[in-house]
Every structure is written in C-alpha cells, then in structure tokens.
C-alpha cells in the first residue's frame, strides 16, 4: 500500500481539527475527499503532505513513517497541486513547471537539460505544450490549473494530492481536469483529490472518503457511499441521487424548495 493512514488526528497547534481518520491508498487509485467547508479537508491534506505534524496516529508512506522523512523524500513521492492561484511574479509556464523538479535536485543546483526535458514531457502529457513559453500570470484559470498539475508531474511523483482542483474552473475545464486525473491514475499514479461536487467523485473516484467535523463520515466505493443520507448529513440539504440513461454512474442534484 502506497499510503496508509491509521487513526490520524490532525490540527493546528493545540487545536485538533479532526481525529480517528483511517484509510489507505494504492498506486493507480483515485480517492476523492468530500465534506463541507470547515470539515477539515485542507488540514488533512497539509498533514498528509507532512506540512503539519500529526496530533495522534500514524501515516505510512511505502511503509515508512511519513513524519520522519525529509521534505525532499516526501516531495519526491507526493506532489501537491494547490488551487489555481495567481503566482506573485510573472514566471513563464516553463519556469513554473520546472520548479516541480526541486526535490530531485541538490540544494545548490539549478535544473539542467534533463529537468527541462521532464518539464516539457509533463506539459505534453497534459496536452499544454503550446503554453510553455507563455507567462503564467497571463493565462486563464483553467490553464493555470493544468500547469500546476504539470508542475507536480514533472517531479515524477507516485501520489498526487489535489486540493479542490476543479474549484473556480468553468464547466468544460472541470471535465478536462477530471479526465486528466483519470488518465494519470491509469498510468499508475495514485491521486487524492478534494471536491465540493459529489458528481465528480461519482465520475472519477475509486473510493470516497467523507469528512465531517473532522471525523470519517463514510469511506467506500462512490456508487455505494454517496447516498442522499450521507449528503444530507454532510451538507444539511436534501439531495436526489439517481441514475440517468446513457451514463454509467448516478448523478446528484439538490432539491430546492
């Protein structure tokens, strides 16, 4: 198992945000994290990335204790895709993507031709090779999100952690990002992503982890786990989960009264 989370408690300083969380993630698997705002998704991500210390429990990366690994060792295995943001300085897309090589370089070295080639490969994988000379701050939000995924891929990680990769993207770009997630998982990379849209979990996830008030509300295959009861518990609204002709997975829609 690539990542094993056992009875994890997480939080900032003395404040415990969540506890009792256990799940595992295999190579090539897509795990989707659902939960309301403030449910602890981002804090869980930061803890699994080793950016925050665990308050209790264990996280094993390839059998090794995550919190004893160096930043470089963690970053080589796990790549983080933040929400598309405006970088502060106007780097070119090429410069942004090659930053994903940092964990594979010594502290005083700069990327060489092999690293530049890895960055170009990552851009080609996502079909955005044409962006490489563009300025990151001048491309669209959807393109930025793809560039950040390319940056993560350029470090050749085995696990991608994506914090709401579809947030603030238009309908088409949301679907494009989800398609890329599926393609990456088929190539053997494990993907863990959070989303506010249960339909995204139904469309692409192998497993759903629902987090509510810092506790595991549900964990299992999406079609069995995402029920009106779970969604009402998570979000406090009535939801219809139904199958529609022509679609292999059910869809969710809220009931407005």
């Amino acid at each position, binding site marked *: 198992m690539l990542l094993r989370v056992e009875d994890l408690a997480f939080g900032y300083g003395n404040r415990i945000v969540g506890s009792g969380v256990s799940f595992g993630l295999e190579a090539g698997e897509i795990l989707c994290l659902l939960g309301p705002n403030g449910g602890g998704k981002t804090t869980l991500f930061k803890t699994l990335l080793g950016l925050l210390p665990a308050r209790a429990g264990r996280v094993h990366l390839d059998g090794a204790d995550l919190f004893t690994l160096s930043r470089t060792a963690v970053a080589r295995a796990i790549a983080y895709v933040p929400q598309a943001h405006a970088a*502060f*300085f106007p780097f070119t897309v090429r*410069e942004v993507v090659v930053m994903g090589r940092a964990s594979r370089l010594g*502290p005083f070295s700069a990327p060489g031709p092999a690293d*530049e080639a890895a960055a170009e490969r990552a851009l080609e994988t996502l079909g955005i090779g044409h962006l490489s000379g563009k300025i990151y701050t001048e491309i669209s939000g959807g393109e930025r999100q793809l560039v950040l995924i390319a940056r993560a891929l350029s470090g050749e990680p085995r696990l991608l952690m994506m914090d709401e990769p579809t947030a603030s993207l238009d309908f088409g770009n949301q679907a494009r990002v989800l398609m890329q997630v599926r393609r990456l998982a088929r190539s053997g990379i494990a993907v863990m992503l959070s989303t506010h849209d249960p339909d995204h979990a139904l469309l692409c996830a192998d497993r759903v982890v629902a987090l509510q008030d810092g506790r595991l509300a549900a964990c299992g295959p999406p079609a069995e786990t995402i029920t009106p009861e779970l969604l009402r518990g998570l979000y406090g609204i009535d939801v219809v989960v139904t199958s529609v002709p022509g679609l292999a997975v059910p869809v969710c829609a809220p009931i407005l009264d």
Partner: protein
Amino acid sequence: MSRGPAAVAGEVSARRNLGLSAAILSGLALLALILAALAIGKYPVSLADLGGVLGHRLLGLPSRVPAAVETVVLQVRLPRIVAALVVGAALSAAGATYQGLFRNPLVSPDILGVSAGAGLGAVLGIYLGLPVAAIQGLAFAGGLGAVALVYGVGLAVRRHDPVLTLVLAGVAVGAVLGAGISLLKVLADPYNQLPAITFWLLGSLSSVTLGDVAAILPMMLLGLTPLVLLRWRMNLMSLGDEEARALGVETRVLRPVLVAGATLVTAAAVSMTGVIGWIGLIVPHIARLLVGPDYRRLLPASLILGAGYLLTVDLIARSAGTIEVPLGILTALVGAPFFLWLLAAGRRGLG
C-alpha cells in the same frame, strides 16, 4: 506537437547562449562606465592620461602623467568607484532577495529594520563623538541587532503566517528605532552633530577609502554566497512557505540563511556609506523588467545593474553641482522617473 529531448536541449542551450552574450555585453557596458567615472569629475582627466595611469599601475609601464592626475584617479576616484560598485550590487541583490522572500514588490532591504538599526547605531556613534571606525562598527552591529530582534519576534509569535509576522515585526521594530534616531537628533548639537547625522542618514561615498571597502568585503562575500548559490531555490521561496515546502524545499533552513545573507550584505553596505534608499527597491524591478523573474538571471542582473546604477548616481552626485548632493536624494530623483517610464513602457516583471 511532441518535441524530442534534442529539440528541448537545443532550445535550452540557445537560451544559455543568449544569456551569455547578454552577460558579456553588460560587463563591457559596466567597464565603459567605470572608465568614464575615472575620467569625469571636477578635475577632468583625459582618456590618454587615464590610459597612462592604468598602464603604469596595472602593466608596470613607465609613468608619464603628473602625480596630481594619478592622485585624483587612484586616491580620490578609485575608492569611490569601487565602493559604489560594491554597495550598489549588494543593496540590489539584497533587495531582490527580500522581494522574493516576502513576495512583495514594495519591499526594500530595510524591510526587517536593518537600515533603521544601522541608522540608530551610527547616529549614536556621532552623538557620542566616536571616531569613524567606531561609528561604522556601531552601524553594522545596529543593523544586525535590529534584524535579529525582528527575527526573534517572528519566531516567538507562531500564530500567524511566518512571513507576515516578520514584516509586521519589522515595521514595529523599525518605528521604535526611528523614534530613537529622532530623539538623538533632537538631543544632538545642532551646529556640529546634526548636519553629520543628516548627511549620514542620506548616504554618501565621499569619504570612503579602499581600506573601508576592504574591511567590509569579507562580510559582503559571506552574505552574497548563499544568495548566489541558492538563487534557483529563491524562485520556489517566492511561491510562499507552504507551496515551497510541498515542493520539497526546507524553508525553515533556507529562509533564515537567505535573510542572514541579505542582512549581512545590507548592514555591511550601510555601515560604510550610510543609508542609501531606493536602490534595493528599484533595481530588482528594473532587472525583472529586463530579464524576467527567474532568479537564475534576476540575481546576476540585479548585481550588475545595481553596481552600474549607484556608480552613475555617484558620478552625478560629485560632478553635477558645486556642492555634493547626498546619494539618497539622487537615487530617488534619478530612479523614480526612470522607474515610472519603465512601468509605462509596460514590459513584464511587476506582480
């Protein structure tokens, strides 16, 4: 459109060649500026005489110029030129580093209180009537002390974003130190000490000796070394603490190292010349407009541009009027309009 690694490597080496020719070109421009600065001044030296002096000193040719010319070139102008190059390069590199670390285009090397601390140290030295070397020593110690205090506060307050805490602590500590400077100005003898204090706080290269430069050079090199060696990592630092750490950068080690380097360089520069504002703020912007934000090119560009900029400003300061204008005034007067013009011209580089 898939491109092979050969195409990528070719493109990379093409960019390298372009960078190399730009470096050679800017080096030649700087050399021309240095020769002009040796020749121009209140006592004009012809290029032939300048060649004679340099030939005598560098190549051991027989001297054929009056001793007065040699004195002007080597004793008066050379120390100022060397100091201008070193201080301009140092302040610009420190400014570029701080702007990246704090992700803010308004950041200058004073952000963590180094100028205020050095200012208080120097003003105290002038107030107590200490010799020049002691004033410089106090300025250096004051600059480092102020930043150490700010960094200590930043480490003690762990509840907020570490970068924001540092900036706010720097503002607060700077205000206290500024109050101390103002108090000493009120207390100082208005006929002797106050002009000296004012002159020092505006920065000048007029009394710099080669010995002064030699004294601060080790500190400069020590401070610049991490900035130069870690310059690609600076790109990652400019993404912010969390993203840099997620990408595998140990920011808890890198940030103090970079802050220490930039602070050492600034404190050393300020202790020798007084507070010269604007350079550390503006030169990194100009460099970014010219070569982009990648620190692999930005840092060398800042070093060269900063050296050339302060040399030019000092040349104006000592040759434009009948009295010598303090550098702090000129760096703003020359720099700000040029900066606004670049801004209007609209090249990439601002946040």
